[in-house]
């Protein structure tokens, strides 16, 4: 296999976020430091908290009615990612789809289904329930774009989006499809809000990742889809290369059903493996887009992971959590943060964590806060973790950094 075949590149990025549709809106909003988290009480009766919604979102679906909000967000992001591409091309039709979601169609189902499913189906229609399986998210994207290659949806809690990108990269190396649309999508819904609320994991106010006074996370919603292909495929069709996926890795803590390993050992190993695949040293990573949920347990474990993984660096590793801008988008988070990492590389901007006044003490981490730091950024990493102990790390580089 040649170097061109082995090099995985990103040739499209589609985003639906609380800033709107498109990477340009996300970039404009985040670089201006605008926070989309707002106090809200209307997400379910009795809910008082803070979240980030995609306001006024609509999608023309050609009369199809069976798609959930998660599916629609995914479709919109995918359409954005492939805008300008020739959809009649045979290679496009044979593309693969690897999406990610934790919510899937849960947004369409209400608690009364448990009191009598058959009656619920009669009242609400079978199509609403048909969107429940997470596989539906990849299918909806494929059906919307007329793509019929291999499809699946990853559902590994909050690491889902990053893992979808990692699995897509493996599939491209295997040559199972000429191109793969990979990403994640999740809608805000009472099920997950209620669940995190019951765990007392939500901060009622805007979250403060990595701050000593952090109290929890905020939920958001959105979707991101990357167009991934090998470098030779991109060159053959004259596509602009937006970034190179230099390395990826996945690990599991195997230490607790929900909490991360206290010392961040599993995540540190994941980071090390991704750097090993990318054949890069610790000083070559210029920025880490952290998982950074804002929960007490995650952020301290993650800090330990960075201290361990980057302990040989000549200077502290710059880290920020962009969940401080529009919350935790669960299965979409890893894909959205991959898109943000690519954006950071392309525009040479290291985004700060918002509201980070009193960071966790660490000699190994350079907490980004205050103003956007402008500097050349040849390579950066996006890190995700989730319930169940799963970790994922992705390393992106500028076009031309290899070969």
């Amino acid at each position, binding site marked *: 296999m040649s170097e061109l075949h082995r090099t995985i590149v990103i040739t499209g990025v589609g985003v639906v976020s609380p800033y709107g549709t498109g990477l340009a809106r996300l970039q404009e909003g985040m670089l201006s430091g605008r926070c989309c988290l707002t106090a809200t009480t209307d997400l379910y009766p009795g809910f008082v908290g803070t979240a980030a919604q995609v306001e006024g979102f609509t999608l023309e679906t050609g009369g199809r009615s069976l798609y959930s909000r998660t599916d629609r967000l995914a479709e919109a992001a995918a359409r954005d990612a492939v805008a300008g591409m020739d959809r009649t091309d045979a290679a496009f039709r044979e593309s693969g789809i690897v999406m990610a979601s934790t919510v899937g169609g849960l947004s369409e189902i209400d608690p009364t289904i448990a009191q009598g499913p058959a009656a619920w189906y009669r009242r609400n229609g079978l199509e609403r329930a048909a969107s429940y399986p997470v596989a539906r998210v990849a299918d909806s994207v494929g059906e919307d774009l007329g793509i019929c290659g*291999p499809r699946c949806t990853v559902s*590994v809690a909050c690491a889902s989006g990053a893992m979808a990108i990692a699995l897509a990269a*493996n599939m491209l190396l295997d040559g199972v499809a000429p191109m793969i649309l990979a990403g994640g999508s999740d809608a805000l819904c009472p099920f997950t809000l209620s669940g995190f609320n019951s765990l007392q994991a939500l901060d009622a106010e805007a979250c403060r990742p990595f701050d000593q006074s952090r109290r929890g996370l905020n939920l958001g919603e959105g979707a991101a889809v990357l167009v991934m292909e090998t470098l030779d495929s991109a060159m053959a069709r004259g596509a602009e290369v937006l970034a190179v996926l230099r390395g990826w890795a996945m690990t599991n803590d195997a230490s607790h059903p929900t909490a991360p390993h206290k010392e961040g050992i599993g995540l540190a190993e994941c980071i090390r493996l991704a750097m090993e695949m990318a054949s890069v040293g610790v000083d070559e990573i210029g920025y880490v887009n952290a998982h950074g949920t804002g929960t007490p347990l995650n952020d301290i474990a993650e800090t330990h992971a960075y201290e361990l993984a980057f302990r040989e660096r000549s200077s502290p590793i710059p880290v920020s959590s962009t969940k401080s801008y529009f919350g935790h988008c669960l299965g979409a988070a890893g894909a959205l943060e991959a898109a943000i990492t690519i954006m950071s590389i392309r525009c040479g901007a290291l985004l700060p964590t918002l509201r980070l006044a009193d960071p966790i003490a660490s000699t190994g981490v350079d907490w980004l806060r205050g103003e956007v730091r402008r500097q050349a950024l040849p390579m950066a990493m996006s890190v995700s973790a989730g319930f169940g102990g799963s970790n994922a790390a992705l390393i992106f580089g500028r076009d031309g950094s290899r070969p």
Partner: protein
Amino acid sequence: MRESLVSIAGLGSVSPYGPIAGLIPQRAISPVAITAWATEGLRRAFLVEPFQPAKIVPGVKTRRLDRLSAWALVASSLAIRDAGIDLSQVDRSRVAVFFSTGFGCVELTESFFRSAAANGWGGTDPITFPETLANSPASHVALFHGLRGPNITIGSKRFGGESALIQCASLLRHGQADLAIVLSGDTITQAVYEWYEASGLLSSACYNEEPWGDGCGFVPSEGVAAVVLERADSRGARTYGHLREGRWTAGGHSLEVVHTMLNGAIPDLILCAGNGGPCTPSPAAALAREVGGQDAVIIPPDAVAAGMTDTGALLHLIVGLSNGPKSGLALLLGTSGGTSHDHGFAALLLELP
């Protein structure tokens, strides 16, 4: 995808056939009446008979788990035992878990909905919520066995099992793990069963004691099947076969793709992984006849595995290997409707020892 280095080292399953390590002894079973919820008349399915996991896997604690997670623990343990692997002698940071499921932890999702219906969204159960996530069974497998490699859960309509096998083999081939446990499974709940029923997908055998009625529709089934994959020759251990190549797509010209995979060879054994079968004629069986001609042994979809609509492939594989020739070239074929020349399909090519 070339997968010549990946070996099927162990099999385990918790299914209506029972909890079994290795191949499944050939025997016909009938659907049983559903009693877990009140039904309007007789409703039947292939169900896993309740059992005590700790009697099969000493030390396993499943009291707080849903059935899917408990079965995943048992099936994975049986497959590891069948492979003759002592995990204490293995670098467990190099062991992956790859799980496919159609409905995930739907029992607990329904339970969470019930708590919301009873107490409002503000009074839901915090213990249940994290366990509703689809990746909980794979996480419990990692936690129980101490497996720190990639831990992945996917859903893929009709081809969850095939997709998991193909992608997990890819992890091994790319050196992202040395050993892997692939699992695939689902549970039947009232909401799932009644959705099938309302959609008109069920066989008449679900409603009466007769064997198979008009042959259309399927009888829902449940369980978890597990396959241990390892890089071939890593231990010189017994193998059920080597995965040579695999493809799955949502559409396209299946016959052309399969012929390309076979590269002129004729398979000795074709296992049909009909999902939603046993509907006659099965699209997978029709494709199998086109591929295998007169010489191949064609094993029709197993009714129990077919009832696990998205996730039956691993059970199909185990049942097929149990009942077919034990050597030669084998093809696992699954299809998902459409025309005979353009439809979703999955194909795995295996070299049997």
